[in-house]
Structure formats: C-alpha cells, structure tokens
C-alpha cells in the first residue's frame, strides 16, 4: 500500500483541475499552505507513532515511582505547550494565505459570473476597446493579470471553483461575492460547481482559458462583435428556422431578432470548446444531438425538446456551428 502512495499522489496532481497543480498566484499560495500543513502534521504523526511504539514495547521495571510520574507529567505538559505553539504558527500561516488570496485594490479586468441551474452565464463589462458582451460556460482571461470575478446566482446556491487557478467562492442568491482569478501560464483550466445545486450539479463545469494578452484582445474583439453574416446555404436556412421556432424566445443571437435571455447567449456558440456546461465537445454532431433531445443528454435541464424535422435539425446545427 505504502509503495502505491507516490503513484496515487502523482495521478492526483496531474490534469487541469487540481488544487495540487496550481497555475495561478492564489492557487499557488493555497497549495503552499496545504503542503506545509500536511508535511508538518505528518512529521508530528510519525513522532507520536514512534513514542507509541516505544511505550508499547519498552522494557519495564517493577513498580512505578514518584520520579517517573513527575517526569511523565513534565513531558505531557511540554508536548501540550509545543502543540499550542505549532497550532498558533499554522493559524498565522493560514491567516497570511487568506490575506494574500484576497482581492487586490484594483484589478485590470472585471467579469460577472451569474450561475443558473445548471450553467454559467458570463458578462464582460464594456471597456475602451470593446463594448460589453455575454458568453456562457467559458471564461477567457489574459495571463499574468488580476481578474476580479463578481459572483451572483439566479436561483440556488452554486460555488465557483477552478482549483488550479484560485480559491473557491459561493454564488448566493440575494448576495454578491467576489473572487480573485489569475493564471500565470496559458492553458485551459477546468472548474466545477462545488455546491450541490440539484439534478445536474455534476454536469456544471466551467472552462477558464488563459491566453497571451494579444490573443485575449483578439478574442474580446471577436466576442463583442455581432454574429457574422452567413455564406453556407444550410447555415442560412438554419438561421431562418432558428428564428421561426421557439429557440429565439430563450436565446439571444446578437445581430438577429433573437433576444431571449432564459438560456445562454448563442452569438458565438460555435467558438466555445464545449456545450451544455462542459457536457460535450462542440461539434456539429453534438450540437444536433443536444438540440434533438436535451433531456436525454442532461435530464432535468431547462431546455425543452423543440419538435424539428430532420432537415431543420441539420440546418440549425450547421448554423450553430457557424457562429464562431
């Protein structure tokens, strides 16, 4: 068993969703605290085990003397005092960690995340370069910059947790919380709702994509633009079907007459890596499967099954895929 431990730890540390594989300043502070406290406590545990072993199997003399009693009392008292000192040290360490992952005075970028059963609505405020825009389940941030994330909930309590980048913070209805998000290295970091929120809590993932500042600027410029005009005939037909069917009542596609706001904004849905909060990769096939029967892929979610002919389904899927 013991021999397997390092292997188990190695597995736990890899991947893009682990507090033990930190790539952002807040997550790195937290990881140092975790490793430090675990290491210290392991040392203490080993010491206690050694004393226990000695106590169990030491050679014993006849009878217990006054002196022995007094010596034991001294040792026990000293150990309790040492415990108190170590505990105080760990408390101070924890205090400094909490302070260092707190919000900075000013962050260069502000994002609002509004959680819903069971997806993440993301708002980017307008800046000098771009007007504000909305996206879903995917957050882009520039590497090496502090990002202030405002956290709100539309229904029940959710929790925003991207362990490789930052701490965990709840999204509480009736309140507004904040979190510092920061990545030091480009990459895709997966997050997951961390407060049980109902039927599809398990399928409520969020992707944080950290990229070089230039790439980030390109992305915001593309996202803040309206949906691009279409050339392909099937996508154009899909657009007509989308606007004629109930789809437009719940979804917004900027640049069209679709302005519903119950479901995710689909203006650039084709540019996102996944659909349905990390459920499946975005392809024309997965889009078609999702539109055809959302309740089988993610039972209980708020998207109804809209009756479509197979041609309509194909066209709408093509249209969705084209919305880069």
């Amino acid at each position: 068993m013991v021999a397997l431990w390092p292997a188990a730890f190695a597995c736990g540390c890899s991947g893009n969703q682990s507090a033990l594989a930190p790539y952002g300043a807040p997550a790195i502070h937290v990881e140092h605290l975790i490793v430090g406290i675990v290491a210290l406590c392991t040392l203490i545990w080993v010491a206690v085990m050694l004393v226990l072993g000695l106590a169990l199997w030491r050679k014993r003399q006849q009878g217990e003397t006054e002196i022995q009693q007094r010596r034991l009392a001294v040792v026990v008292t000293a150990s309790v005092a040492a415990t108190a000192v170590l505990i105080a040290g760990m408390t101070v360490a924890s205090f400094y960690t909490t302070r260092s992952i707190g919000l900075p005075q000013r962050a260069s970028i502000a994002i609002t995340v509004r959680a819903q059963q069971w997806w993440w609505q993301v708002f980017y405020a307008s800046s000098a370069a771009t007007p504000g825009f909305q996206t879903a389940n995917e957050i882009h941030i520039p590497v090496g910059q502090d990002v202030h994330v405002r956290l709100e909930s539309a229904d029940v309590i959710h929790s925003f947790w991207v362990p490789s980048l930052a701490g965990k913070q709840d999204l509480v209805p009736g309140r507004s919380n904040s979190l510092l998000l920061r990545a030091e290295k480009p990459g895709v970091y997966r997050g997951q709702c961390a407060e049980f929120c109902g039927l599809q809590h398990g399928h409520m993932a969020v992707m944080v994509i950290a990229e070089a500042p230039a790439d980030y600027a390109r992305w915001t410029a593309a996202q803040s633009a309206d949906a691009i005009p279409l050339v392909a005939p099937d996508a154009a037909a899909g657009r007509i079907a989308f606007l004629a069917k109930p789809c437009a009542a719940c979804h917004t596609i900027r640049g069209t007459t679709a302005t519903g706001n119950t479901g995710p904004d689909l203006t650039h849905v084709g540019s996102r890596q996944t659909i349905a909060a990390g459920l499946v990769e975005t392809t024309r096939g997965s889009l078609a499967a999702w539109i055809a029967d959302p309740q089988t892929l993610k039972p209980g979610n708020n998207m109804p099954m809209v009756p479509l002919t197979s041609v309509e389904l194909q066209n709408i899927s093509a249209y969705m895929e084209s919305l880069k």
Partner: protein
Amino acid sequence: MTRSAEDGLRDTALSDRELKRALASTWSAQPGLWEALSTVDHKVIGRRYIATAFVFLALGGVLSLLMRLQLAQPEARFIGPDRYNQIFTMHGSNMMFLFAVPVMQAMAVYLVPLMVGTRNIAFPRLNAFSYWIYVAGGLLLWIAFIVDTGPDVGWFAYVPLSGPQYGAGKRADIWAQMITFTELSALAVAVEIVVTVFKQRAPGMSLDRIPLFVWSMLVTSFLVILAMPAIMIASTSLILDRLVGTHFFNPAEGGDVLLWQHLFWFFGHPEVYIIFLPAVGMVSTIVATFTGRPVFGYLAMVMALVATGVLAFGLWVHHMFVAGLPRLGESFFTASSMAIAVPAGLQIFCWLATIWAGKPIFKTPFLFVMASW
C-alpha cells in the same frame, strides 16, 4: 460488608428474604410481547437502541456501495440523477441522524447507569419514548425513500434548493420531519444522562471519581442540549416556508439564505463533537483497562473534554468559509478551529503516558484502539 454495618443503612422493616423477593418482583422483566415492547429497563432499551442503530449503519453502507457502483466509471447509467441525489442525501442523513449520534447515546443509555451505580436511568419512561420516536423517524425516512419520495437535497438541505421554489414535492418535508423526530429523541436522552450523572451516582462517588466515559457523555449531553434546538428551529422554519408560505429564507422578501447555514452549522459543528467525545471516552476507558492503571492525568482529561465542548460552539463558521462572510470573522473562526487541536493533543499525550507507565495487554479492544492511531 458485615451485617451490622448493613443494618445501619437500612430503611425498611422487611427481612432480608422478603426484601430480595420484593426487589426481584419490582425489577425483573415480565414475560410476553407487550411487556417486552413496553419495558423501561435501560439495559434492554440500550441494547435495542444499539442494535437498531447498527441496522441503519448496514443500510447506510448499502447506499454507499450503490454510489460507488455508479461512480465506478464515468457517465455510468446504473442510477439516474434523481435517484442518485436521493441516495447520497439518504446516506448522509441516515449516518448522522440515525446511526452516529444515536449509537453513541445508546452506549450511554446502557453504560452510564451501570458506571455510576444506579438501577435505572433517570426518567425511564422518557427513555423508552426516545427510543420509539427515534424508530419512528428512521421508518419515516426509509419508507419515503422506498416509495421514491426520499429527500434529495443533501443531508445539509441548503436553502433555497430545499425551499418551496426549488424543492418540489414532499421530499424536503420528509427530511425536516425526520429531523424533528430524531432530535427530540436525542434531546430526551441527553436530559436523562445529565440527570442520571448529577442525581443518581452511588454514595461516595463524587464527580471527580466517575469514569472518563461518563464524563465524556456528560459533556456530550450538554452539547446536545445546546446544539439541537438550533437545528429544530431551522427545520421548523423550513417547514413553515414550505407549507405555510413564510419567508425566513427568501431573499426576495427580506429573508436570508445564509441564516439557514448559520443555524444548521451551529448544530452541525457541535454534532461532530457529539460523535467524537463519546469515542474518546471509550478510548480512555479501554486504555485504562488494558494497561492496568488509571488514565494518566484524570483532571487534565476532564478539562480537555470540557474545553472541547466549549470550543465546539465557536467553530461553526468554518463550514461557511466560501459563503462570502467578512474576512476578519473568518480569521477568528480559523483560530478557534485550530485551537481545538490543543485539548485533542492533550488527550493523545495522556493516553501515551498511560501506556508508557502501564503494562499493555494486547486483547481485541486494545488492538482496536491501537489501530485507530
């Protein structure tokens, strides 16, 4: 003891033989099913309580196996999300409210009167009542689960997920009613233990002579008396929100969803020590017995139990560190949560000293204690 000394203590004119017969007829169990069900003997009720708690433990274990089967591979289709949510809610609620707390209190119902030298627990009929109301709570929960109406909001039942708007059907109501039953039972037993320890100790057994297990159950009982009302207030407010339409937890009408978390964890954290303290009491008793010497530092051990009990009420906010409370308050609760390691460490060091000074006998109970380190 000689006859003459005994005579001095007697308060009856009956002869020895008649007295024995009278006592036997008063205290012996009557035959028959009705007598068995209506007994108020703490030993019978204690055994029954322990056995019932272990039945719930086994059922809870089956639930966890079902969960592990579903999780054995990603996106498995073994259990649907609705049933799965019921299963993990049942597992948590079952283990906390129908096993862990009751089994510890059951041990006390059986052992405490014997350890303080009294024939029965205080308020024996209340004791019987507490057992039956506990069974009622357990049956309510499990029957609801069998007919697919089991609670599905987690054993912590956070609002608004468990509230009227998002918790459809009767599921959260069943959960809240089970809480009322089992907490009533826990409160009744706690009162019995406190009164038994304070009022029914054998002559000459002062408080500084009672076994450490009895001390641990005394502290635990005070924790129950102080913590359980919070969860009963919470579950009653939840039922009112759901059935009457009050707005305790509705932010749109001036309620607060974090109020639920404060009330729940003001109970929920002491609950941890309601389970932990009886166990350390058992360890103290077992270590003393199987090393052939009294526990080292009896007074220090008692102080550690009391300190843990007091600190237990200053920790609840560490369950809400991600809820967005002020940082300064969180730092206070971090410090108090860490501080509980001091009395816990003290107990470990006293056990070590006991083993050091004593002569360990490697029998099963002692081996279990050693394995727990």
